[in-house]
């Protein structure tokens, strides 16, 4: 599936800027992904094994379990917001710089 391009892909991935971008992105994404998976699975696990905690009323009839379930939404939104800010500010620029070096405008 060659695109008819003569881009030297090995040169792209050997570029130190590419390495730096990839390393930063991978560390960031892996960390965020592991955190979000653990945080999510705490909900069903807690509901099964920590029922007393979930039943504790904190705000009128609203108990811990309900607040924890609601917090899942807030945390998911925060993760999305945090990731897209970091990507927009940092990863996109680095990716565009690398792309500009190897992809001359007339060719694509």
């Amino acid at each position, binding site marked *: *599936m060659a*695109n008819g*391009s003569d*881009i030297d*892909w*090995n040169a*792209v*991935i050997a570029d130190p800027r*590419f390495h730096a*971008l*990839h390393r930063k*992105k991978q560390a960031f*994404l892996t960390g*965020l*992904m592991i955190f*979000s*998976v653990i945080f*999510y*699975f705490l*909900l*069903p*696990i807690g*509901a*099964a*094994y920590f*029922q007393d905690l*979930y*039943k504790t*009323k904190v*705000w*009128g*009839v*609203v*108990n811990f*379990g*309900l607040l924890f*379930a*609601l917090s*899942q*939404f807030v945390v*998911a*939104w925060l*993760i*999305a*917001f945090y*990731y*897209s800010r970091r*990507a*927009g500010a940092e990863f*996109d620029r680095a*990716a*565009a710089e*690398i*792309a500009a070096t*190897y*992809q001359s405008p007339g060719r*694509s």
Partner: protein
Amino acid sequence: MNAQHRRWTAAALTGALALSSGAAFAQGAVAPQYRWLTFAVFAAIIGLTMYVTYLAAKRVKSASDFYVAGGGVTGLQNGWAIAGDYLSAASFLGIAGLISQYGYDGFMYSVGWLVAYITVLLLIAEPCRNIGKYTLPDILAYRNNPKAMRIVGSLSVITVSTFYLTAQMVGGGVLVKTLIGIDYEYSVIAVGVLMLAYVMFGGMVATTWVQIIKAVLLVAASLILVILVWTPYGFSLPAFLADVVGDPKVQAKVATLIGDPAKNMTAAELGQRFLEPGLYFKNPIDQISLGMALVFGTAGLPHILMRFFTVPTAQQARKSVVWAMAIIGGFYVLTLFLGFGAAKHVGPQAIAAVDAGGNMAGPLLAQYLGGGPESFLGNFMLAFVSAVAFATIVAVVAGLVLAAASAIAHDLYVGVYHGGDVVPPQQQVRAARVATVIVGAMAITIGIAAKGQNVAHLVALAFAVAASANFPCVLLTLYWNRCSTGGIVLGMVVGTLTAVFLTLVSPNVTYPNAVRETAQKVFDGEAAKRSAIEAALASGDAAAIAKANTELAALDKAVTKARDDVAKVEGKTTSLMGLEKPLFTLKNPGIISIPLGFLAVLLGSLLFPDRRSLAMWPEVYARQNTGILVSKASSH
């Protein structure tokens, strides 16, 4: 109100009579004299979407237009379209219903459906946009053997889409029948024909707009209902929930659910129990297994993946997921109020009386908030919500059919049959339209053939296959340098077969002996219950008599159902797979099949390395991270 009401009704009857051929109608949640309202609202929605399709059809010239709207959708539009594609009737009506019946567990269930998008956002959306073109097999074929990838990839796409589609068609048919009273077969045909009109003429452009319009209507309708439900409590969450748990109907429902222990509990304790876990989910491992299928499966759903090819860049793909998460998450939070509101105002028992699964919670709440079954506004709101439900099914089905049709036309016909030769654009679009008609006709046929079947587990199965086969394959082909053709083929086969096999031997399918046992319990308890009801009827106390009459109706219904169930398994002792009892005790196979799918890709890749997969790695690695050449892939 009354004079006008009558005038409306008269006009309505004329319209409704013209539409109904008598036999096509049965009893639905919408009263017959208000059925025209549903049709009027739905006609308006169809009119709008058909107009959009008409405009779209003129723009569909190339294969890229048909499959991915020419890659010209914006992030915001795509976010709404993803929400429209994803919020099926199961989540729109099902989750509100689950909350109205089981309280907390229903809400907890909705969380996984949103968290799934974190996986999509962080791992899948942007690399797929950078590498892919129209379909899921495109991503796999980029570095692995193209023919092999298109064959296994499209088989998996068709499998997942067919499971999901069958569940939607059957669920949709039942739903439209329950809501409006149109016969099941007519409902299925109506959904199928409308969807075909959108997809065949308007391709992805029309599908996208149908999904956007539906999502906007869905969110708007829910928002209005929630404002109406919540305003009396000054928008205070504890005040609202305190009223819900203080409701005798809710307390009675909890007492029925927990059985004997309820005798030692006060009314307040019973009500509070509605906000605590454990009324619906009994097996935590099963729930974790379901959670895994949702969280990893969404990223492998072909109709969702396809949406990322409709935007021009990785940045827009990211933006679409963020918007989709805001809309989908916001919708599930609204559902919390719809479900609890319906439990308080309509009552769990009254909802279950119309539909045992609780699916009517939202529509009945709308009717109540508008002024009840006798009022015009109440019926208008019920009609509106019903029309939105119908539009919901059509929009989801359209996305699924497009995904399956593109796998047939783009991957199998153009990619495999023509072996990647240049196929003229008109011919590609024609192939896509023919494939759409084939898949659409298949959907209608399966929908009618599967009437009365239990298809609830098919959505879970679609997610399980997507999580066990598609997700490991897409993820590892994007991120692992040693991933190979052999690994993907093995992963697809092992992931799909394990998920399907485990489901077939799970408690999801019917076990005749278990059915007879359950029915026997109903028959055994019948006499005692009947004498208790008769005693209550003879007591002379008006409240007790009313309660006894409801109980009598419920008992009769349960006995009839038990008899029907036993009749269905007459003479059989084993399940579909020849088993007397489940071999695998979980309802959701994910916890086993997802790790197996990953393992198969790993082993297959290490055992059968291939030169092309390895040689293409630098290109995949560079492109998925930088988006080089992406403008080329999407422009036309």
